[in-house]
């Protein structure tokens, strides 16, 4: 019984740290999106929107290198997109963290399972899938 309680509290500590980590990730990425959004409205507010037909090449910010190039030029849309990118990587960081905690517990089956999940996400990062 006491060992269960102990494990439970250790688990809970990890989850609290994880919860905080996620919240920090969300707050950081949302701040970036807000700054980008503000600048975007400042420069483009009077433009007309055109989202009726999907055009894959319209935003020009559909790869990580493109986002970083735009970021260097302080393009408001690239700043928003960078915030979105930070947000996407927040749960990915959680997977990495979980793999490490399985490694510490020497639970190699779950190190394997976690690594597979991470691999799937990393594979989707290569733009081969989009064609």
């Amino acid at each position: 019984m006491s060992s269960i309680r102990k494990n439970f509290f250790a688990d809970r500590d990890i989850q609290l740290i994880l919860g905080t980590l996620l919240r920090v990730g969300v707050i950081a990425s949302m701040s970036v999106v807000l700054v980008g959004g503000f600048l975007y409205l400042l420069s483009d507010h009077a433009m007309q929107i055109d989202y009726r037909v999907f055009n894959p090449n319209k935003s020009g910010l559909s790869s990580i290198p493109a986002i970083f190039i735009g970021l260097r030029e302080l393009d408001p849309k690239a700043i928003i997109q960078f915030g979105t990118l930070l947000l996407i990587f927040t749960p990915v960081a959680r997977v990495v963290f979980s793999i490490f905690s399985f490694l510490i517990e020497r639970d190699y089956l779950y190190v394997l399972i976690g690594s597979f999940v991470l691999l799937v996400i990393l594979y989707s990062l290569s733009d081969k899938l989009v064609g």
Partner: protein
Amino acid sequence: MSVLLFTFIVLAGAFLAGLVGSLTGLGGGVIIIPLLTLALGVDIHYAIGASIVSVIATSSGSAAAYVKEGITNIRIGMFLEVATTVSAVIGAVITVYLNPGFIAVVFGLILLFSAAMMVIKKVDRSDNDTSGKLAVFLKLNGTYPTENGAKNYAVHRVAGGFVMMFFAGIISGLLGIGSGALKVIAMDNIMRIPFKVSTTTSNFMMGVTAAASAIVYLHRGQIDPGIAMPVTIGVLTGATIGSKILVRTKTDKLKVVFAVVVTFLALQMIYNGLSGKL
């Protein structure tokens, strides 16, 4: 429509979607997509891209709050993510080859199903019968804290839950939603995981699954900053306020009213999909 007007309309709509979505447990994505497509004439591929980003934001943002209420079973989550990440990527890859009308019809059907699931009373079927071989091998059985000390629970029909999760992931990748209603079927009904564990574990998985398909959407140009920005900020703000109100409000009546609204939206999506207006 000017960028400024569009941004404010979407911001307000996304705020409401996040608020009501968190009060009823339906999530923001299922409401923001009809709003963007039906009311503002946005192409459904853009709406899906914006919605998936808001799913990640709400899932990650509420994780910290969830830690206080229940306990995530990281092993169940990680194991089922094998199914959901693979299928979410598949869903996200094929969605662009599908006719927008077809996507709208599938979306409407899932919306109808979610509305029904929201009103039906959920039954906790969890027990401690640890006879499932696969659950023992994968160390999925666990404990959660109650007022009378730790309570054990066992996981059932792992293979069935895995298959259902694969389906939930496809839908998530296809439509850019969290597909919470399908995850409830997999975890509560098939695998018989107690609510305290399934809610938080499902939330844990939602962010990871959405991240996998969001990357595919990003590469394809479906995540447009001009739409994703107001959607994400609006839904996240609404959901955060909603989760604070939720603690001291009864939502039974709200759920029924909202189920009617969602049913109406669903029929509208199906009609527009079939008549080729989307």
